[in-house]
């Protein structure tokens, strides 16, 4: 049997709006993935959890306006610890003009309001293919 894709999902920093993160977590589970929901965490704890859990994907949710500071920090800390085969995704209220900057700093994908779960699932499968070989 194929190993389940493992997702570590976190609310980024102090942001309080958990609706999206929890709904997406439950729907990724429906899609056959294993999801560890961390609740609110800061980048250091998120990276530690991702490493301990052997995560394939890290999902970061924020509607709190801290995406440009704390999002790329998660990628940087992962790289510093020698982890470069984890897909880091973000979701929440993120102005479109900030997305190129996030992508340049290693965020693989950004899923704003109105995203569909099938698109997120498809994106995760495509991204993980590049690490498969």
């Amino acid at each position, binding site marked *: 049997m194929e190993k389940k894709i493992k997702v570590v999902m976190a*609310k980024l*920093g*102090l*942001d*309080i*709006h*958990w*609706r999206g993160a*929890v*709904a997406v977590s*439950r*729907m990724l589970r429906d899609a056959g993935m294993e999801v560890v*929901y961390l*609740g*609110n*965490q*800061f980048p250091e704890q998120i990276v530690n959890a991702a490493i301990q859990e052997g995560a394939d994907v890290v999902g970061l949710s924020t*509607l*709190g*306006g*801290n995406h*440009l*500071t*704390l999002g790329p920090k998660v990628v940087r800390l992962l790289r510093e610890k020698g982890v470069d085969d984890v897909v880091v995704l973000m979701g929440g*209220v993120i*102005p*479109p*003009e900030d997305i190129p900057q996030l992508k340049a700093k290693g965020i693989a994908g950004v899923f*704003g*309001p*109105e995203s*569909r*779960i*099938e698109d997120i699932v498809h994106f995760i499968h495509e991204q993980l293919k590049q690490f498969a070989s």
Partner: protein
Amino acid sequence: MEEQKNQLFNQQVIEHIKKGKEVWMQETLKNKAGDQEYFTEAGIPIELLYTPADIGDMMYERDLGFPGNKPFVRGVYPNMYRGRLFTVRQLAGFGAPEDCNQRIKFLLANGATGVNIVFDLPTIRGYNSDDPEAEGNVGVCGVAIDSLQDMEALFDGIPIDQISSSVVTHMPSTTVALMAMYVVMAERRGIPLEKLSGTNQNDFLMETTIGSAPEILPPKHSFRLQCDAIEYAAHNLPRWNPVSYNGYNLREAGTNAVQEVAIAIANAIATAEELIKRGLKIDDFAPRLSFFWDLCNDFFEEIAKCRASRRVFYKVMAERFQARDQKSMLMRFHVQTAGITLTAAEPLNNIARSAIQGLAAILGGAQSLHIDSYDEAYSAPTEEAALVSLRTQQILQVETNVVNTVDPLGGSYYVEYLTNEMIKKIEDYIALIESKGGLVAAADSGWLHREISDFAYQQQKDFESGARKIVGVNYFAAENSATKAIDVFRYPAAEERQKAKLRALREKRERRQVEKALAALREKCHTDANIMPAMIDAVRAYATLGEIEDVFRQEFGLWQFPLV
């Protein structure tokens, strides 16, 4: 007979209408109603046509009454908007307090009639702007407040003895600190406390259920602080609403209209029980309890919700708590249009959504209103977008004539039927919460979190399946090119300025006084005494918000959010 005088409809007429409807269905309507079933957002079936038979046993004075009279279904004031228009209360909150002060003045200069302040996340969660945990969040999504001097800068030049301020403090642990800062700020300006008019949010569910955070106080301690603030106001702030039971954020997080109202009223019930236990009488504090509703897109259901919530609250206060003062029995509420219904696709469509929701608020008899801005799926509103919201309120007030008669939908067969159904469902859900041990226990066990999560999950599934249609998103989805780029508000950089102010403050203040005041606050945590007097002393000594909240975190301990 008294009963006959009160009965809205003659029962013979009702029988006649029932028969008439049967005939109409067979001979006129035939099969033209279609097979599809329709439901309100809360799941109440919608009939094609309502008649007096659907509300045939209603009694006018018992079930509706006159506005300003029990049971307040038609409104809390006899003259409603002719007496005083709903307060135009647009939110403002970003940057350092000096930045936000400018936006408040801009809104007031353009006709806003009240102030409505939202704080940044470090402030809401009780961290100073120079705390490592605040990184990236200072002055974002709200204004940063670190100490009394920031509160003074925020309200500098704002006539707080003449206009009311809504201070959206979210959690009780922050409320008690920010409320103390507001009180001391007023004191220093020479404004008597009895002149202060306004509202704190102060809802323990914001701390433990609706919002999540890395570090949370346990529900029973958060609830105690909520009640401390209300008790303090009952003695000292006669025109202040020390709580705004927050149905709004429950709805945004994931509840239907019934749950929204039921949970908020269950919180009022828990508060009343606690304060009566402390020796207060219901009429000492109930007149200043206020509520906060979220009006979504199901137009008639939202109006029915507003009307029903007044009736349920009346019954709770009059029958259960035996209130004597009329003011204890009438529910006043603020409305904000539903952020959750705004779309990032084709953002100008949000102006239409918000206007429709705002209209529902007026038809529902709201006391104050914030209309969301079209760009809020991207960021906090730009000045231009905030002005459109303000203008929408003014259009409703002076161009549509909807404000000039009280409860214009009263007597609509459908709206009255729906109001009755909502009342039943709200009361049933309150009973369900009580069967879980009451609201504090329901939050502590995680039951409430599960209810919210289940609803959010189901709504997302309905959206994905297309059962729930959103224009421009899954119904005539906008092509990317069709979505015109809009200006997105950029927050002014506030972090460094706030940090510099904190450094200067720590130099300037009397260190020993701060320590003494914080020690006194710490000691009060472990007593039954009200926290507010010690809090006011701490604030006056320029203890920072972060220092105050650290005392709570250390003394009350932290709680694991029961959500996985």
